[in-house]
């Protein structure tokens, strides 16, 4: 016998939570507003399943997220299944199989939940909502810029106008290291140092590249300064062409949204593991988390594609909370036609299921600011 108490029924596994009123409704409404903006730019919605065969879900671009994925065995086929931890690889699979013959560029959108085996250092959440767009079969600065502009418009639609996009070039550092012939063991220490922007360790492990890498490391910041530093840096041809892509993307974004805040971090590559070109991360001032991320990758083996995923959980923490839906108590005998008109007007009506002694007190108890009785609508005064 032990004295262990039975688990509390409210206790959930780490990183999982219940969304209650009003957050659950706010979240759903926000996701629909994001999706409406995506749809208005021609991004058509797809809905991949939660579970797929492990070997197809984690093939190709999905391989990069393999270590984040929950697995279970399918009792039916006896094959291993994996739960998606990211939606982009699923959309890429759809684009290369079922929609292989759909005309390019193919614009697809999605919204849904993902599960990761562990949370991040900052955030314990293991279930993460995603709402995103993929632009498949197109490349070049206009395509990359479109993702940023559509995402910015979607964020503005839920009240997040003051966001910034951090643009990065994950393939730049590998291109620099390859051109300099850095060996594999030195590479891993150097990549870790670059990831942590540890200037001292970059100098220690950087060898001939130390000066260039240190200059790029210090160049992170507002777009104009960072682009100038990239232009001035001593880059081999492949890295130079990546830098030119980035500059063209910045120009394309600024041409259409001159006020949008852009920062550039040329040596950032964290979390961008299947990406092949310009990538972006969305931030909001004063928030310590990423609101979204995306970038260029290969769909299937060879088709150019780019996508951007927003994280509704983080968006809702950053956005101002909308006014709650006003509630009206429908006393017995209230006119159903008037009640229907109130609902069309955006109110929620709370119908009395049985007569009560004091309708006003009942309305107050149920959180209603107004009451509809046989003689019409009136405000419920606070007690």
């Amino acid at each position, binding site marked *: 016998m032990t004295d262990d108490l039975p688990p509390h029924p409210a206790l959930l596994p780490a990183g999982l939570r219940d969304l209650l009123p009003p957050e659950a409704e706010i979240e759903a409404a926000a996701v629909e507003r994001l999706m409406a903006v995506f749809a208005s730019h021609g991004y058509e919605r797809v809905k991949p399943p939660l579970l797929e065969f492990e070997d197809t879900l984690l093939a190709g671009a999905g391989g990069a997220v393999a270590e984040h994925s929950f697995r279970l065995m399918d009792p039916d086929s006896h094959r291993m299944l994996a739960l998606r931890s990211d939606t982009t690889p699923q959309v890429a699979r759809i684009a290369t199989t079922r929609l292989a013959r759909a005309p390019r560029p193919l614009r697809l959108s999605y919204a849904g939940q993902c599960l990761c085996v562990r949370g*991040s*250092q*900052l955030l314990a959440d293991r279930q993460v909502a995603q709402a995103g767009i993929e632009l498949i079969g197109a490349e070049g600065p206009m395509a990359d810029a479109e993702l940023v*502009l559509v995402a*910015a*418009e979607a964020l*503005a639609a839920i009240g997040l*106008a*003051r966001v*910034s996009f*951090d643009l990065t070039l994950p393939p730049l550092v590998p291109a620099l290291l390859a051109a300099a012939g850095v060996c594999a063991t030195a590479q891993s220490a150097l990549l870790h140092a670059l*990831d*942590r*922007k*540890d*200037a*001292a*360790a970059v100098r220690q492990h950087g060898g001939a590249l130390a000066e260039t890498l240190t200059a790029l*490391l*210090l160049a*992170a*910041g*507002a777009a104009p300064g960072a682009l100038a530093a990239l232009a001035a840096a001593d880059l081999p041809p492949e890295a130079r062409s990546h830098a030119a892509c980035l500059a063209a993307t910045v120009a394309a974004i600024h041409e*259409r*949204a*001159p*006020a*949008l*805040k852009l*920062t550039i*971090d040329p040596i950032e590559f*964290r979390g961008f593991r299947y990406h092949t070109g310009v990538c972006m*991360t969305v*931030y*909001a*001032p*004063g*928030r*310590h*988390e*990423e609101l979204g991320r995306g970038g260029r990758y290969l769909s299937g083996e060879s088709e150019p594609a780019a996508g951007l995923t927003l994280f509704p959980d983080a968006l809702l923490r950053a956005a101002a909370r909308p006014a709650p839906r006003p509630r009206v108590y429908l006393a017995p005998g209230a006119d159903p036609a008037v009640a229907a008109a109130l609902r069309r007007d955006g109110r929620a009506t709370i119908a009395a299921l049985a007569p009560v002694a004091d309708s006003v007190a009942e309305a107050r108890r149920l959180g209603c600011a107004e009451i509809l009785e046989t003689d019409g609508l009136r405000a419920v005064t606070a007690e």
Partner: protein
Amino acid sequence: MTVASRIAAFAPQESVAPLILALPKGRILGECAPLLARAGVVPAADYADEESRRLRFPTNDPTLDVVRVRPFDVATFVAFGAAQIGICGADVLLEFDYSEIYAPLDLGIGLCRVAVAEPAETAGQQDPARWSRVRVATKYPNIARRHFGARGIQAEVVHLNGAMELAPGLGLAQVIVDLVQTGSTLRANGLVETTVIAPITSRLIVNRTALKTQPEAIGAWIARFRAALGQETDATAGEGRAR
């Protein structure tokens, strides 16, 4: 185009709340003082007074406040964005390996090392290559596990917060992994340093997201500290102070 009209520019007074600079209590705090002075940061006078109950101090700059916390907590405050900038030893960064911390500047102060030490009478008598495991007393469990793990040895860590030097003599552990500055504490307790795991200096650290969202403000502080470092050799490096 509609996007342009719907996206507001960042207001010039972006961050109304002051930035927080986290400083470590104890040994390094004293060494920070000249550097802070050269960077033009003048915290309220009692910040260096370990007796003061105050933990948060205004500075001469209304956009910067200083907090004084334990060295290990500097990294935690900065990693979670509670402080945007901090000064802490590379030992703390090695131990926690927080992915949200950038360490853009080696301040060259707080020189010491993380090292393995053993009792003087037994040191060198065993061949560690033959060990499957070793019991280590340390306040750096991750550094200890990584160091021995890389040599094929499981480290059974006894996690202590201080007085590691007592552990071998009292049978708590075979070896210790600790910060060594002069080695006098080791000698006084009959221990000798057998392996240096890493040389340590203090770093200026910044929160990753803060650097992304406030690149001008954070970048200016990095530049200011860099200028302060170069000041002995470079007479023109005072531009940070002139801001």
